[in-house]
């Protein structure tokens, strides 16, 4: 196991809502928990719990691209990966933000 804490700058996410969970923890899948930052800070704080060691540079690259393409400022994101690939992680993060922004979800 490896735990990474990564701070990202991202466009502000103005929507506020209760914490939201996307995905499941299963082999090759991953779980993403999104909530508003309790400290009301501007950036996006990501905590990654990964089963694979030594991939911190890839996590940084995946998350930096995510923060650039989505409004994640002011959010806290927790990721439990189960050996998920960057493709799955990116997809789950996009789904999490879409669900966060969806008024009907």
């Amino acid at each position, binding site marked *: 196991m490896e735990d990474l804490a990564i701070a990202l700058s991202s466009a502000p996410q103005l929507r506020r809502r209760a914490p939201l969970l996307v995905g499941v923890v299963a082999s090759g899948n991953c779980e993403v928990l999104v909530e508003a930052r309790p400290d009301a800070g501007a950036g996006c704080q990501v905590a990654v719990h990964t089963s694979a060691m030594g991939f911190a540079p890839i996590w940084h690259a995946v998350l930096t691209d995510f923060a650039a393409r989505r409004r994640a400022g002011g959010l806290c994101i927790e990721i439990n990966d189960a*050996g998920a690939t960057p*493709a*799955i992680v990116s*997809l789950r993060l*996009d789904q999490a933000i879409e669900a966060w922004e969806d008024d009907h979800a």
Partner: protein
Amino acid sequence: MNAGAAVPGSMWDQRRRQRQRRLQRAAPYARGRAVAAADTVALLHALLEPGDRVCLEGNNQKQADFLAQALAALDPARVHDLHLVQSVVALPEHIALFERGIAAAIDFSFSGPQAGRLAALVKDGRIRINAIHTYLELFARYFVDLTPHVALIAAEAADAAGNLYTGPNTEDTPAIVEATAFRNGIVIAQVNECRDSLPRVDIPADWVDFIVVSPRPHAIEPLFTRDPALISEIQVLMAMLVIKGIYAPYGVRRLNHGIGFDTAAIELLLPTYAAALGLKGKICTHWALNPHPALIPAIEAGFVESVHCFGSELGMERYMAARPDIFFTAADGSMRSNRAFAQAAGLYACDLFIGSTLQIDLQGNSSTATKGRITGFGGAPNMGADARGRRHESAAWLMAGEQARRDADAMPRGRKLVVQMVETFREGMEPTFVERLDAWDLAGSMGLANPPVMIYGDDVSHIVTEEGIANLLACRDRAEREQAIRGIAGYTPVGLGRDRRAVEALRQRGVIRRPEDLGIARRQATRDLLAARSVKDLVHASGGLYDPPSRFRNW
């Protein structure tokens, strides 16, 4: 003496004389063609000579496993230095032949399940691998310089006259027997049973020398069954890219799909996503393909006009018998496969091949040979190669050829579409894209002059990943080709090493196309698009005719 007369029994029929000597030695162990299972080892001891070329039939589907066990039980003091010439190294007995010193050399095509042990044998110097072939290439050599002295084959049933019925898994048998029987070799068949009459004759009796009723049916592996429940959203996304970004614009109607979940996802998206795009009747009508259960929903939706098969697939028998307009079937409804003809069909009559691989380098060369594993390539190098001898035209072939033409003065010619469909990372975060293929190191340890490449980069037309499609036909030089590949290599070291400006320029020219460039939103890629989401759904789609093996039944 009359100078023009040939001496009777001269030097010109040594093979026939050798065959007669073998048959005389074997006679005590047979009654006519019939050999008791318990006498099989004695029969082989009598027939075989050191150094013989032996074909032990087996493919990634059916296996002459009883005869393999008998061969592996021979006394290496009597029978040794055999040269195996066969499609696959799949059974533990195949490896045991080398460990016990019965066989010394091999020419083969594929070794999936035994890839690690094969590499260990090479390392220990217990095996000489002469060459790894594609199937059609190995069959071709049976008729030139690798004709078997003895062929050990598998069939479903024999009749009293000695005719053989292979059932739907005819596979390699006709090619092996044709080469062996007509060059004075010996053909030994294991059959599951003797019957009074056969549904059809696949191999005539006078091409077969000995028949053994095996104590148990020959093994068949359901290799091409993919449980739709295991198809991921990423695979759905890639399948959408292939359908909208390649099949639709080229109008690909005649094709072959490789094995795997990536291509199973395409098959399951035909009646849903492709149909919604108005592509029914315009793509994927004629196939050289094993009877993939994942194709059932597309067949039922009227997408498919014909399927010719390399081999069969367990559980598909009743379904195929009930769909004789689609499959090649005998009068009784039983499907007839033939690997040699299906490989020829894949080479000359298909406009597209799509398959997966383990490693791709910066010029698009791909290999499934990775460190410590000698896997071989099966049919992929044949299917995944432009057929330079092809002359007939089709819209897809002409369009691909035109895109590949660099010089307006060059003679126009069509070309095949060869697509590699891979996720940027494999399981365990192994990057698919690499600077240097492991095949380079393997070449050294195997004593090969060239690295064992599965599909050469200059044969590849497109690479598809979850990041998009790279059209290699449209790349003007090696540098563009490298950036096109880096541009879809995602977060692998190769992908992170891209020149961002060059990649953006390629995207502007349409050489790289992202999902959004094709109007595909990633959030659309859900499993709801799959026409079947479980094996049970496939059974339902077949109207109850598909009968999956028990390991795929979880209801």
